[in-house]
């Protein structure tokens, strides 16, 4: 093979499997992103962080119980949020990771919360761990179940909040997310009262790699970001309100086959 100098002289081909969609100019790009998602690098990082002995207690997260028993990560994401008897709360994945990072590893809650969302200068451990644990449910169906009273309460509270109008723009989640074929500028909006659309949503988000953010974003970030656009204050990380909404929305997407992390703009 000849040495090729000066710029990228190698032939960088776009591999098109199946027919190209001439009508949709973005189809090729979407397919490439689906096949090679930068989010996969967060999965690798998350796996490393999961097994690494960290924190003042120098412990790994291998004994963390995500609802299926200590250390069982396969299928854990698919059944979250759920009730945990040790904390007597309904918790989503990030809330549960907070519990384990504090209890098992000795981290301070405030320190984790401060770095929950990565930025251009610093990566977030949470985003990596969520990517890893989320990916361990790939191929399984979202199956949020309600059996404990607090799970029923959480679901109904989430539904109530979904329709709750507030803020200087009178927005609720329902304002933007209860009709088909709607978009804000050029951003399509899923109709969250349609189970089929919800199944498609929960299948590949959240976590998902967001191109505009150059990092994987999680469900907590999505809710935080919506709150920001609704002109409300910073949504409390892993707050009951955020877990309630997540319970309501994930359950609406029950049956969706998980394939995480996804890719978004």
């Amino acid at each position, binding site marked *: 093979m000849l040495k*090729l100098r000066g710029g990228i002289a*190698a032939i960088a081909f776009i591999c098109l499997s199946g027919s190209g969609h001439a009508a949709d100019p973005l189809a090729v790009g979407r397919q490439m992103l689906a096949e090679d998602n930068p989010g996969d690098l967060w999965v690798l990082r998350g796996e490393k962080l999961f097994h690494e002995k960290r924190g003042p207690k120098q412990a790994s997260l291998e004994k963390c119980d995500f609802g299926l028993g200590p250390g069982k990560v396969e299928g854990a994401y698919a059944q979250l949020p759920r009730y945990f008897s040790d904390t007597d709360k309904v918790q989503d994945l990030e809330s549960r990771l907070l519990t384990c990072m504090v209890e098992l590893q000795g981290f301070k809650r405030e320190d984790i919360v401060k770095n929950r969302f990565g930025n251009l200068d610093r990566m977030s451990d949470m985003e990596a761990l969520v990517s890893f644990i989320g990916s361990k449910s790939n191929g399984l169906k979202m199956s949020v179940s309600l059996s404990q009273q607090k799970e029923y309460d959480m679901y109904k509270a989430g539904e109530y909040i979904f329709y709750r109008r507030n803020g200087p723009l009178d927005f609720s989640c329902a304002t933007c997310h209860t009709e088909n074929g709607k978009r804000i500028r050029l951003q399509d909006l899923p109709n969250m009262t349609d189970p089929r659309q919800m199944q498609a949503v929960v299948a590949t988000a959240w976590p998902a790699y967001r191109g505009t953010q150059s990092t994987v974003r999680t469900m907590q970030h999505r809710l935080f970001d919506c709150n920001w656009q609704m002109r409300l204050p910073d949504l409390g990380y892993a707050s009951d309100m955020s877990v309630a909404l997540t319970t309501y929305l994930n359950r609406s997407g029950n049956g969706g086959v998980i394939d995480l992390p996804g890719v978004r703009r």
Partner: protein
Amino acid sequence: MAEPMKIRATLQGDVADVRILMLHPMETGQRKDAKGEIIPVHFIQSVIVTHNGKTVLDAQWSQAISRNPFLGLRVKGAKAGDKISVTWTDNKGDKRTDEVTVAAAS
């Protein structure tokens, strides 16, 4: 820095379709921090891809390449089991090498 890459190489006939995901800030030197000071350039300067030890790609990159770059290339004359190795070096002297074996077409 120097976070691991994700590389996959799948055989199509006698051509290995190689896809590489890299983690790198690729700072352009145009961004300002909270204090208003320029964040210095920090980018991958060279990428070398070898096939069974022989260099097949020797690229010189600039800060114009995006953050968390993706590189795809096709290597002729490949067989299942061949070694594809990728090494990047950045302007601070940081280096990262990852290797993968060419997988047979599924």
